[in-house]
C-alpha cells in the first residue's frame, strides 16, 4: 500500500476552445496572487485510507469536484457542501480525470458519494473531516469490503472545509470565479474554465533504500563487464584455436615440440605404413650373430650415409605385398629421399614383369621401378628428373637388368633405411624372406606385432629416433586454450632468443646474459609454469593407465635435466577456482 505524501491544489485555466486529452491536464496554472493554491504535506493533516497500489511513487492528478447525489438524499447537506460547488456538470468535458471530494458525514453518505464517483472518471477520492454535529464516524471504509479501484484519502477538517468553500468559488464561468473580474481584465476569455486541479503524490511504504539500489546497479554493471569480457576472450580464444589448427594443418607447428600429452597413431595411419617381407642383403645367408649388438646401437641418422653396408632389405614384389593385404602409399618426400640416396634403384626384372618392356632406357627403367616397388608412389616429374642423373649409366645398369640370376641382381644394393637385422623391441632377428616387417616413415623397421600396439596406444614417436610417425598437418589432439597459450608463448620465446642470438652475433658477443627486461624473464617463468601444469595434468591422466610413453622429447624446450626429473614427480592439481576462472576468462595466465 502506498501512502500519500503530498497534496497540491491549484487553479488551472482550461480554454473553452481546447479539447484536451483526458489524461493530459497540463494547462497553465493561474497566478497565485490572483487565485488560490494550497499545498498539504504535513503528515498530521492527512491519512491514506485505502490504496491498491503497492509500488508507490505514483501521482494521481485530476480536477477536484464533488460527486452528484440524489437531490432527495439527506447526505446532500448544503451546510457542508455549498450549492454552487463544482459538480461534474461544471467541468468542461466528460472524460477529464477527476478527483472526487466530499465531507465524511455518515458511512451511508460516504458510500453514496463513492458509488457516484465510481461512475465518473475518478483517479482518487478525498474525504475531509467535518464537525461532530454532522458526523457519526470517521472511516468511510468501515464495515464491508471496499469495492472500488481508486485510492481514498482523508484530509483534516481544518483544511478540508475551507477547501470545500474554495471549490465552490471555482465552479462558474471566468467572470464569476474568485477574482474573476481581474482575471477577465487580465485577458482570460470569459468562456474559459478556471478549476481546481489536484495532484496527489504517493510513495511506497517500504521503499528500497537508496544504498541497496546503488549496490544492485554496481553489481549489475560488474556482471555485465565480466560477461562482456568473458565473451570477448572466448571469441579471441576461438580465433586463436582456429588459427593454430590451420597452422598445424599446414605443418607450420611441431606438435610434439609443444609437449601436449600423449599423441598416438590412429589405426588408419598405421595401416598405411609399409609392411613387407624382410630381405637380407646377403640373400638369406645366416646372419653373423656378432653384428647384432652393433646394429641395434648404430641406429642413428648417420647410418644411411655409410657406403660400406653389407646387408640390405628390398621391397618384395607387389604380389607379396598384396598378399599381406596392405595398401602401400609412400609420401613423395620419402621416395625422393630414397632416390637421392639410392644409387642403383633397379629391380630384378624377373620379379617385375611389367618393367621388362620399358627397361631399354635407364630413365624409363627408373620410372617403372619406382612403380613396381612402391605401388603408386606419387612421384612428381621433377623428382624423376632430379633422380635420373643419379641413375647409373646405361652401360652399368643394363647388364644388371639383364643378369637377373646373378647374386647382385637378386639382392640389389637397395640403399634405404638402416642396418637393422633384428627387431629393437623384442631383439629377435629378422629372418630373410620370411619375417614381415613394418617400416615407419623414418625408415626404421620393426615387427608389426611389436611396434603397432605401442604406436597405437602410447606414442607417435619412433622408439629409436624419436621422430614423429604422424603425417604433417594431421591434428590428433583437441586444441585447448592451454595449448594455444603455450604455442604462442613458445613462439614468442623462440623469436626472442633468435633476436638475442642475432643481436649478440652482430655485437660480436656483447653481454648476452642480460637478455633484457622483466617481460622476458616473466615469459620464461610462465612457460616453465605452463609446462609444469601440463605435465601435472598428464601425470594425473596417466596415473590410471600406467606411466608409459613418457613424452618423447623432453618438453621441446630444453629446461635442464633436473627439471625434467621433477615433472615426473610433480603432482599438480589445479584448484577448482582456477579451473573456473580459466573457463570464464580463457586466455588469462
Amino acid at each position, binding site marked *: 500500500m502506498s501512502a500519500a505524501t503530498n497534496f497540491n491544489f491549484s487553479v488551472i485555466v482550461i480554454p473553452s476552445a481546447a479539447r484536451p486529452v483526458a489524461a493530459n491536464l497540463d494547462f497553465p496554472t493561474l497566478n497565485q496572487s490572483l487565485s488560490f493554491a494550497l499545498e498539504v504535506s504535513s503528515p498530521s493533516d492527512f491519512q491514506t485510507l485505502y490504496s491498491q497500489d503497492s509500488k508507490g511513487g505514483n501521482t494521481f492528478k485530476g480536477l477536484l469536484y464533488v460527486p452528484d447525489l440524489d437531490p432527495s438524499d439527506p447526505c446532500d447537506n448544503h451546510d457542508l457542501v455549498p450549492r454552487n460547488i463544482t459538480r461534474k456538470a461544471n467541468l468542461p468535458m466528460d472524460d477529464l480525470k477527476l478527483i472526487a471530494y466530499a465531507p465524511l458525514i455518515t458511512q451511508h453518505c460516504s458510500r453514496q458519494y463513492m458509488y457516484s464517483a465510481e461512475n465518473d472518471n475518478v483517479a482518487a477520492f478525498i474525504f475531509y473531516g467535518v464537525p461532530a454535529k454532522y458526523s457519526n464516524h470517521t472511516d468511510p471504509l468501515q464495515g464491508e469490503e471496499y469495492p472500488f479501484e481508486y485510492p481514498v484519502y482523508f484530509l483534516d477538517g481544518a483544511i478540508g472545509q475551507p477547501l470545500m468553500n474554495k471549490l465552490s468559488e471555482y465552479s462558474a464561468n471566468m467572470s464569476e470565479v474568485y477574482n474573476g473580474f481581474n482575471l477577465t481584465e487580465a485577458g482570460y476569455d470569459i468562456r474559459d474554465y478556471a478549476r481546481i486541479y489536484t495532484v496527489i503524490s504517493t510513495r511506497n511504504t517500504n521503499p528500497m533504500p537508496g544504498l541497496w539500489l546503488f549496490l544492485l546497479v554496481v553489481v549489475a554493471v560488474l556482471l555485465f563487464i565480466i560477461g562482456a569480457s568473458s565473451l570477448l576472450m572466448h571469441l579471441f580464444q576461438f580465433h586463436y584455436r582456429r588459427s593454430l589448427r590451420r597452422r598445424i594443418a599446414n605443418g607450420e607447428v611441431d606438435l610434439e615440440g609443444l609437449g601436449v600429452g600423449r599423441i598416438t597413431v590412429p589405426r588408419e595411419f598405421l595401416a598405411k605404413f609399409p609392411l613387407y617381407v624382410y630381405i637380407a642383403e646377403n640373400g638369406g645367408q645366416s646372419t653373423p650373430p656378432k653384428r647384432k649388438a652393433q646394429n641395434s646401437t648404430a641406429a642413428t641418422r648417420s647410418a644411411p650415409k655409410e657406403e660400406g653396408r653389407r646387408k640390405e632389405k628390398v621391397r618384395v614384389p607387389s604380389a607379396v605385398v598384396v598378399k599381406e593385404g596392405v595398401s602401400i602409399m609412400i609420401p613423395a618426400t620419402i621416395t625422393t629421399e630414397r632416390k637421392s640416396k639410392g644409387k642403383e634403384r633397379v629391380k630384378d626384372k624377373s620379379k617385375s614383369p611389367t618393367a621388362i618392356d620399358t627397361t631399354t632406357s635407364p630413365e624409363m627403367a627408373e620410372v617403372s621401378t619406382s612403380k613396381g616397388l612402391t605401388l603408386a608412389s606419387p612421384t612428381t616429374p621433377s623428382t624423376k628428373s632430379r633422380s635420373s642423373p643419379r641413375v647409373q649409366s646405361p652401360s652399368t645398369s643394363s647388364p644388371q637388368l639383364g643378369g637377373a640370376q646373378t647374386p647382385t641382381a637378386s639382392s640389389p644394393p637397395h640403399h634405404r633405411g638402416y642396418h637393422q637385422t633384428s627387431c629393437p623391441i*623384442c631383439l629377435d632377428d629378422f629372418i630373410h624372406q620370411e619375417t614381415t616387417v613394418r617400416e615407419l616413415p623414418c625408415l626404421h623397421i620393426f615387427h608389426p606385432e611389436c611396434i603397432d600396439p605401442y604406436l597405437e596406444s602410447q606414442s607417435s614417436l619412433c622408439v629409436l629416433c624419436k621422430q614423429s610417425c604422424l603425417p604433417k598437418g594431421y591434428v590428433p589432439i583437441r586444441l585447448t586454450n592451454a595449448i594455444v597459450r603455450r604455442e604462442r608463448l613458445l613462439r614468442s620465446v623462440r623469436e626472442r632468443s633468435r633476436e638475442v642470438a642475432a643481436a649478440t652475433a652482430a655485437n660480436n658477443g656483447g653481454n648476452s646474459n642480460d637478455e633484457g627486461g622483466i617481460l622476458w624473464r616473466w615469459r620464461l617463468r610462465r612457460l616453465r609454469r605452463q609446462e609444469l601444469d601440463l605435465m601435472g595434468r598428464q601425470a594425473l591422466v596417466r596415473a590410471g593407465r600406467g606411466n608409459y610413453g613418457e613424452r618423447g622429447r623432453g618438453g621441446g624446450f630444453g629446461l635442464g635435466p633436473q627439471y625434467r626429473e621433477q615433472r615426473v614427480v610433480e603432482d599438480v592439481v589445479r584448484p577448482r577456482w582456477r579451473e573456473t576462472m580459466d573457463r570464464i576468462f580463457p586466455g588469462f595466465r
Partner: protein
Amino acid sequence: MSAVKRITKELAEFSNNPVPGVSAGLASEGDVFKWNVILTGPQGSPYSGGVFTLNLTLPTEYPFKPPTLNFTTKIYHPNVSNDDKGSMCLGILRSESWKPSCKISQVLEMAAGLLKEPNVDDAVETSIADEFKNSPDSFEKTAREWTRKYAK
C-alpha cells in the same frame, strides 16, 4: 607379455655372455622384473676390493620404458644419490633418451664403467662431483674409506 619374453631372452643372453665384473640374476624366481646385480669394484679405482649390490627394476612396459638401477650398498660416487634409494644416474636411463634397443647387459656394462670412471657432467651428487674434480685425493680417500666400511 612381450616384456617377459624379452627379459627372459636378455637374461639367458647375459648368463651366456656375462659382462666382466658384473654378476646378475633374478631376485626371486618367477619375477623377471626384479634383478639382483653385484658389481665388483674395478682394479685401479677407489672402489677396488668392494662388492656392491644393486637392484635392477624393470617396468612392466619394458622395453619401452627404461629400467632403474639402485645401489643397496652405500657408495661414495658422484653419479649415485647418497640416500636410501641410492639411485644411479645414467644418461641412457632417462626416459627421453632411452631406446628399446638398449639391452640390460649394456646398462650393466655402463654401470660398471661408471665405477671405473665417474661422469662428472651427469652427476646427481654435485658436491661429490666438485670434490672429484677439484681435489681428487680427498675424494679417493673418502671413496676408499666408504668402500672399506660398507662394501666388504
